[in-house]
């Protein structure tokens, strides 16, 4: 049951912000979306590392902060110099999210199969 905790976290965070009447930052709207994608990448990467028994808290936490900020900053820099780095970030991060999710799926299936055999 403990495995659903990240999902609960996402829902709680979502509800917390969505139903607050926060001012909407139009100027950084696209960077905000990109930061959310970077966050998705980090969290899926963290779950993957956890399932592979390679999880290290400091790498995970720093990765989340740095990647989220960096994705937004890179896209902003791209806008300034007229290169669409936004797309590069979307492709790179999106690809990694897919990769992480497929590895998570395999790890999970393997562990469930092992647990059944032990039982």
């Amino acid at each position, binding site marked *: 049951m403990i*495995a659903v905790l990240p999902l609960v976290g996402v829902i709680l965070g979502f509800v917390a912000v969505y139903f607050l009447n926060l001012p909407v930052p139009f100027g950084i709207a696209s960077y905000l979306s990109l930061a959310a994608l970077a966050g998705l990448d980090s969290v899926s990467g963290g779950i993957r590392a956890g399932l592979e028994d390679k999880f290290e808290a400091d790498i995970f936490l720093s990765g989340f902060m740095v990647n989220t900020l960096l994705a937004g900053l890179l896209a902003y820099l791209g806008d300034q110099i007229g290169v669409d780095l936004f797309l590069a970030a979307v492709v790179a991060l999106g690809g990694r999210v897919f990769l992480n999710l497929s590895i998570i799926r395999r790890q999970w299936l393997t562990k469930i199969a092992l647990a059944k055999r032990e039982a």
Partner: protein
Amino acid sequence: MSPLGLKKSSWIWHVTLLSFVLGMLLAAALKTQQTIRFKSGIPTTRLPVLAKAWADEKERTETLRKEITDLRAKLTQYENALGQGGSQSGLLRNQLQEYALQAGLVAVRGPGVQVVLQDSKKRPPPDASPELGDDYNIHDYDIRDFVSELFVSGAEAIAVNDQRMIATSSIRCVGSPIQVNGVPMSPPFVITAIGPADDMESALKMRGGVIDQFRILEDLTDMVKVYNRKDLLVPAYSGSTRHDYATPVESKEELKK
């Protein structure tokens, strides 16, 4: 025992913590995009759709502008018909035409000057500051200076490109293009002024006047050309003339309140 193992499951708490942050980010991103869509009335923020919406709006503006011109022409016809009715309505029509002339709602022709403002063909020196580099382009304040100078020296009707100057006219900079009466345009800017041509020309060219003072440090006289013409045409104002706030004052007593 769960397939994850109890001892190693502390990572789950870390992930949960950041999942919470991720949820907040997702919500903020979603809400921002939704608000943008809601405010703009456009179902998406993707560029191709926005480009299409922009083109549609532009076309609509053009159509509406044409409609205004048509309606104005029809109005003139009605006024002419009114003039044939009798001496009193003829008087009324003359007065109407006088006001329409004053308001810039009819096209007019006559002698005057034409000022052509253009970005300089010279390039700023490579070590020039951005402020100095700016001087090589025409700005909104340049056009305003010339228009004001022309009015003060007797111009009766002025148009910047095809935009007639009226009581509520505006000339302002919006990034690279300049908007005159809210219509974007780019160089060359042709200011057509009907009035005493010689007076206006000498007013522009007098010592210490607009042309004499124009970019005096860089010798950029190629940006301004003045032509003295016998017959010029200034188009009618084609924008909206609605007044939603101002109402006429009927009597002097009302002014004292």
